[in-house]
């Protein structure tokens, strides 16, 4: 099971990076579009529409990765006061809550995709994008998010019944503010150290 988890983690990270590249490219496209619009008086056309698709597909592809990385915000003010057992129960409930809301969202997102496919909907713009394309990636991202939530729930559930609180917290515990910042700060310090080496 650990091997499956590790594999899915790598896949989700790849998905998030792919989404990041989409967003990165759309930022470049928009920036360049402004410049050529003013200097050459012409436009790439549709850059804004593509930015919207990049946001929807990119973020849906990253939902699962964010779940692995435990960056979906939870208010842990009271949580910190609870017993280990209760904390584990709340962690499991948190994942179940994600499934409870995002399962219907994904199901109806799929209905939107189906509708676009059946009626061959194109966007009302000069691009005339067949909506099936971005919507298919978007639904795939949402579906992967649900699968990751299920997988984490199953693994953490097993750990819960085995009384293995470390594994539960490592997989689905809230990311304490300090833990998150250590990473952020690690990034900054990595940069300053590099600077010291390279005068």
């Amino acid at each position, binding site marked *: 099971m650990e091997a499956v988890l590790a594999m899915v983690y790598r896949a989700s990270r790849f998905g998030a990076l792919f989404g990041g590249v989409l967003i990165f490219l759309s930022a470049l496209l928009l920036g360049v579009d*402004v410049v050529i619009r003013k200097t050459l008086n012409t436009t790439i056309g549709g850059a804004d529409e593509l930015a*919207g698709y990049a946001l929807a597909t990119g973020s849906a592809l*990253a939902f699962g990765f964010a779940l692995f990385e435990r960056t979906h915000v939870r*208010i842990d*003010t009271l949580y910190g006061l609870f017993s280990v057992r209760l904390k584990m129960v709340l*962690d499991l409930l948190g994942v179940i809550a994600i499934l*409870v809301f995002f399962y*219907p969202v994904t199901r109806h*997102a799929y209905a939107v995709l189906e509708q676009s496919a059946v009626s061959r909907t194109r966007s009302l713009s000069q691009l005339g994008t067949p909506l099936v394309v971005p919507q298919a990636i978007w639904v795939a991202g949402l579906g992967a998010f649900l699968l990751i939530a299920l997988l984490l729930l199953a693994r953490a559930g097993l750990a819960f019944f085995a009384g293995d609180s470390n594994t539960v917290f490592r997989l689905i515990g809230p990311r304490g503010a300090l833990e998150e910042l250590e990473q952020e700060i690690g990034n900054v310090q990595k*940069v300053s150290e590099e600077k010291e080496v390279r005068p």
Partner: protein
Amino acid sequence: MMILVAFTVLMGLLALAIPVAAAMGILALVLAYLYSPLPLILAAGEITWSASTSFILSAVPFFVLLGEILLRSGIAERMYAALTHWVSWLPGGLMHSNIAACAMFAATSGSSVATAATIGTVAVEQIEKNKYHEPLFLGSLASGGTLGILIPPSINLIVYGVLTETSIPQLYLAGFIPGLLLAALFSLTILFACMLRPAWGGVPFKTNWAARWRSLPDLVPPIVIFLLVVGSIYAGLATPTEAAGMGVIGGLVIAGMKKRLSFAMLRDCLEGTMKTSAMIVAIVVGAYFLNFVITNIGLTQKVNSTITELGLSPQMTLLAIIIFYLVLGCFMETLSMMVATVPITATIMVNMGYDSVWYGILIVVLIETAMITPPVGINLYVIQGLRKRGHLHEVMAGATPFVVTLLMMIGLLVLFPGLALWLPRIMSGR
């Protein structure tokens, strides 16, 4: 009754540490089930699609990405050193550089955590070298960092604009004067503290005019980013989202010139961006669906009529809302607090005749306060995490005078709404 159910369910779910996005979604499902004859869930797909393809909202990941790039570009060290030559002759020395550097970085960054972390990293090593009063020094960094979301660009103002359908360029304009005023007030706070306790001000910093002029080129990179991102909006060249795209390009060029650009660096930037953006979009999706349900079951009107029945005057309502946010801000993560509450409170305030641009700025200043009030104040943790010694209590103590300053700022905004509204008014000629 409906209001009570909604409030209790939301607070209950959040207190149980249910992820905020799911908490809002589930509240929406519960409300729809209890109070609507229609299967509102059928709209969830369509709503999620339209919320997450919003062109305005796509500025958010761009600004997050710009922040990630600037953080790794190394512009902060040089900028901090340059500003030190200009402002640290004041009693309080480098603490004024902390505020000035935060204000300047805020003009390129849309996030308070990024601002506090970037400037904090450069500044903390100065405490021992120059014998500053450590708590006040740390407090100046935690509170200076909060300027990140008030001085444009600002991620929180974009989210506010999207939720309340308020113009982002107007909100950005409205943030300028309060942002600069707040930076000045922070500096005054340091000045007063150091005049009362001269020992807090550390070793005086020596400089001369030649050094000052020599330092100026180091201020160019942040100014270029600011002009690209904010200047292009008001020159009529670009929408806020396009401007954010230009900022990303500018950030890449600067990082490239400083030889910090690499494939690995870019991958780290994108990974960080996606983690943050996915979290924000998930919350926005939950909030959009919740808003749709709330509007459909008539909850917003209910809240409005309840307030009218209570006979609260606009001033009393405003006071109640300010106190509500100050209290909630002590315990709740700020973006979630804003997304979960603003759709309702903004409707109330606009109905009472307050301007939604002004209210956006007020909310941002309240959020800034929330970021440095214990027990949950994200910027306190940022600064404590950076120095890696001592106790969090020292940062909290040092931030206290600045909390008072922020309360004064809130008072000023209430008494003089023109602080926020004057600039958007003359720029748009309304």
